[in-house]
């Protein structure tokens, strides 16, 4: 199936960012994909207008569409899936704690702990963290996309890392975040 080359360019440039954002805001991998589709359907319908914008403005437009879709979804649902996901992760950790203390199991356990801790973060911190970790965006780029000062993004990233470090018992990071 052929897709407009302009759309391909737009899609390639922004899909990871949009995915990181909606995943961060919803805490639900499946829902994030559905919302990602909806965002790009709207992008397709507004391709002529979007095409004339510089990449930073395009990203901001797409993020604002994604934000509205997430808000609509939360309004419709009334409950937050992230909480359920975090609880499921905690249950998995409980099961795996008995597996054994070999290196692989320990690594797996730490990743599960980190996973649960990430989904427990407030939406605002999680979305910033995921844009940094999943998409490799700088604080300035995240700030432009979300309409926040880069300093605020840096502070939120530090907050997110501090919370994760605390849950993982990495005290050094916590002290570093305070500096």
């Amino acid at each position, binding site marked *: 199936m052929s*897709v407009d080359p302009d759309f391909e360019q737009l899609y390639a440039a922004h899909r990871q960012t949009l995915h990181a954002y909606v995943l961060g805001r919803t805490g639900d991998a499946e829902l994030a*994909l559905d919302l990602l589709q909806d965002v*790009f359907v709207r992008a397709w319908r507004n391709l002529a207008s979007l095409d004339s914008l510089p990449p930073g403005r395009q990203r901001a437009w797409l993020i604002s569409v994604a934000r509205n879709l997430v808000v609509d979804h939360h309004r419709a649902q009334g409950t937050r899936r992230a909480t359920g996901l975090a609880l499921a992760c905690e249950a998995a950790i409980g099961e795996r704690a008995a597996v054994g203390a070999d290196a692989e199991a320990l690594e797996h356990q730490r990743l599960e702990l980190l996973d649960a801790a990430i989904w427990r973060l407030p939406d605002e911190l999680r979305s910033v963290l995921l844009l940094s970790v999943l998409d490799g965006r700088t604080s300035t780029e995240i700030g432009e996309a979300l309409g926040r000062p880069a300093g605020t993004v840096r502070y939120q990233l530090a907050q997110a890392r501090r919370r994760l*470090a605390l849950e993982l018992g990495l005290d050094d990071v916590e002290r570093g975040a305070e500096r």
Partner: protein
Amino acid sequence: MTESDELDRLLAAWATRYRLTQVQVASVRAHVASSESAAPAALDAEWLWWLLRPVTALVDRLELAEPDAGGFGLRSGSGPQWTTYLQLA
């Protein structure tokens, strides 16, 4: 390795679970392409006229049957706007 590096390493490992895969990328693209083919490309005046035709046909029929009956606001045969329009024509 500092504990900050350890957190970075764990976050990088965690990210591999959630980053978009090529299959997901292709799936979203296909969905967008199929949505596009079902949607109207732009406002088409001919299509809009065709859509409204049952309503306009009803108005035409009433006008032909009772040309002086009025009942359609400004198109009353005795109203000043209608008279002016006829004079200009």
